[in-house]
């Protein structure tokens, strides 16, 4: 430690150090005291956001799929919220979206000035009881949600032309994904349900990286969400380098699995199970799949407020959202970016939410056991 003794600053340096610390402190104080303190209690829904800024927390970095969704929704919401209102996106990335959602739940006041965008990953973290989760959807109110589907496809060398031929599969297939607790969970559950002999290779950095592994032949079965499927997998299908098998499907209001509107020609997991087994799927594996379908696909993107936010603010946002989702200009842009998926507002979202959280106890036990035994997840 030669240098410890030489760390005695010359006098001048200490003086300037002190001065700059004061300047920083003063700046910090000035910044924090800028917060507008107008009381919004007692405002009606019509005027709630007049001259008020709504912060929308996106728990991912700028530029991703969820951020794109949020920015599109925000720009149209702003038009509907009335004069003088503004909607601002705040990206708080980290810990697979847990950081941003925690920030919303713990550090933002329920005064109607802050909303949260949640993605399928956020839901999974909540449903699977990730240890750092400090937010609870039961203490939030839903504003808007929309689904985004996914398609499972396979390499042509395996000689399978369609999902109905899956029982002729001779060898173990290799699946590439990111992690068992993220969006890949749905594909893994579908394979369990269909009793496919598969080797999960998890650890790819992104779904783009796992798609390259599929193109290389390192893996031979893979899923992609609909926008990525349309732009990157459809060209492969056209060149005979990939064969689509099935889509995850969507849930209708009765809780039944129906075909994905973007892929009307592809069977759903439900149909594939029926054609392979001659009967409807049931039991814990199916219940778990359906709950995760509601969380990960049906509510892939959603917008939430605090439970204790002023009633007028929730009403104002829901009314604005109802107008946004019938705006032809909005629908055109949404279809172009995300695919032709429906939008749900308010109570409709909460109905879907119930499908996700009301997972039967034996299905939850089955899922916990699967994740523990097969994927080494032992902290639930």
């Amino acid at each position, binding site marked *: 430690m030669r240098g410890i003794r030489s760390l005695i600053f010359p006098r001048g340096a200490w003086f300037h150090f002190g001065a700059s610390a004061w300047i920083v402190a003063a700046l910090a104080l000035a910044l924090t005291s800028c917060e507008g303190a107008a009381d919004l209690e007692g405002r009606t829904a019509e005027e709630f956001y007049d001259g008020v800024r709504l912060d929308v927390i996106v728990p991912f970095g700028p530029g991703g799929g969820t951020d794109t969704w949020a920015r599109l929704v925000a720009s149209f919401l702003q038009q509907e919220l009335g004069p003088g209102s503004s909607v601002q996106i705040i990206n708080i990335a980290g810990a697979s979206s847990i950081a941003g959602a925690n920030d919303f739940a713990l550090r933002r006041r329920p005064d109607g000035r802050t909303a949260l965008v949640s993605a399928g990953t956020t839901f999974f973290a909540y449903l699977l009881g990730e240890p750092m989760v400090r937010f609870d959807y039961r203490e939030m109110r839903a504003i808007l949600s929309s689904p985004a589907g996914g398609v499972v496809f396979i390499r042509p060398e395996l000689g399978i032309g369609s999902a109905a031929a899956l029982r002729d599969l001779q060898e173990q297939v290799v699946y590439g994904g990111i992690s068992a607790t993220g969006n890949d969970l749905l594909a893994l559950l579908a394979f369990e349900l269909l009793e496919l002999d598969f080797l999960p290779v998890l*650890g790819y*950095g992104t779904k783009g990286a796992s798609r390259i592994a599929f193109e290389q032949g390192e893996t031979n079965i893979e899923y992609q969400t609909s926008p990525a499927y349309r732009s990157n997998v459809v060209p492969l299908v056209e060149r005979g380098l990939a064969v689509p098998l099935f889509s995850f499907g969507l849930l209708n209001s009765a809780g039944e699995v129906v075909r994905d509107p973007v892929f009307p020609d592809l069977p759903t997991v439900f149909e594939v199970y029926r054609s392979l087994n001659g009967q409807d799927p049931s039991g814990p594996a199916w219940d778990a799949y359906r709950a995760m379908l509601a969380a990960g696909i049906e509510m892939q993107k959603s917008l939430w407020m605090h439970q204790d936010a002023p009633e007028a603010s929730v009403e104002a946002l829901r009314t604005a959202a109802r107008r946004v989702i019938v705006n032809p200009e909005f629908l055109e842009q949404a279809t172009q970016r995300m695919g032709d998926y429906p939008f749900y507002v308010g109570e409709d979202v909460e109905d879907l939410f119930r499908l996700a959280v009301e997972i039967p106890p034996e299905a939850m036990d089955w899922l916990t056991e699967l994740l523990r035994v097969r994927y080494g997840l032992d902290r639930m």
Partner: protein
Amino acid sequence: MIEAAFHALLALLEPARILMMVAGVGVGLCVGLIPGLSGTVGMSLVLPFVFGMDPSSAMALLIGMVAVMHTADTFPSVLLGVPGSSGSQATIVDGYPLARKGEASRALSAAFFSSMIGGLIGAVAVFLFLPVTRPLVLALGSPELFMLTILGLSMVGVLAGQRPLLGIVSGTLGLLLGAVGAAPAAPHYRFTFDALYLFDGIPLAVVALGLFALPELLDLLVRGRAIADVPKLGSGWMTGLKDVIGNRWLVFRSSVLGVGVGLIPGLGGSVVDWLSYGQAVQSSSDRQEFGRGDIRGVIAPESSNNAKEGGTLIPTLIFGIPGSGTTAVLLGGLLLLGLEAGPQMLDANLDVTLLILWTLALANVVGTLACLLPSRFIARLSFVPASRLAPFLLVIMLFGAYQSTRHWGDLVAFGAIGLLGWLMKQNGWPRPPLLIGFVLAAASERYLWISWTRYGWEWMTHPGVLIIGAVTVVLTITGARMKRSAVPGGGAP
């Protein structure tokens, strides 16, 4: 394709788009100039404007920003010994000593010219290799990628100078630091102590700033004088230009290396400057001046870090896999414009791809001029007394570190790593190997894990693995031998 390229150039030359590009260059220069700010910050700045803009103008804005981010970052690296961004860390090793000798403006102009040439070579290389890159990238599976990270890690020996053993210890420490947070392949968290901040690991910018900037600042204060030891500014920018021309092969080699590293998705482009620096040292017979102000130590990393941006465009555009932080940002911008990266960027959207390349080339030239003209004045910063400069620098560094995640943990981590860096500097431990270990930690673990679960022991017999392994062994051995035979005090042959 030539005709399409011509049309794309005409499209770019529309005044509105040129204006957009210049605006992007402005943002990129500012972001590069302030230590610790990365492409993500630049993206957040321009995103609100990009949304709803016509794609070509938005593209000009974004690429203008991307193209020059690693040009302006040279200012803090050379003048203050503080990394301007993750791409210009290696520039410090020789650039900063040059500034202390009063040759700041020579170092800066050499850096800017090599940066520009690197950027242009990057754009040309992308254009030439566009049709054949797909099979090239598809040839690299996880086992090959793992071996490439090993090749990168083998550079720690060269970068450790005369103390290779300490280099290995330092590199291992970096691997350990890189292991903090969520494991790349399994749902487990390591060394997080239940702190949410550590779940994603320590941000690269915080590590780089702490390791290099804070110790430099302390020493500056201890010495209590200006950065430059001599009273007046030495030779000017013409000398720098001559240096670049004199070392044209080094510029070319480093640029090609930069494009190559950029091209490989998932390797972590942030080590390219160190690899390039290592390559420059390894291939020189006279090594005594490296680390004390050898101009080649500035030229090599600066050529490659800008060339890399061209290289990373390929995996970004064709596969949708960003090769660096900056291109991750670009990918986001594309998505906002309703353009999805993928093979269609080579046919249906070829015009956008070509427009991107032209913008990259043109923005490089504009950015270099914008940096070169005021550089002589900015270089005077190295004559400001330490006691006036240091508080200002500390504020900027804290600001830069805090921008990583905007969590107070950034500041704590910055302080802790700064202390580690200072202790290492005081005791003569090499710091670059630590950074290389840190950057390659996640990638090496990830690809080793995937290779193992997918292939078992069989991955070791893949031809690509054997070839890269052989190259690594040969480079390590020749590097070690040349080091031994280098004559102390020997001049150029």
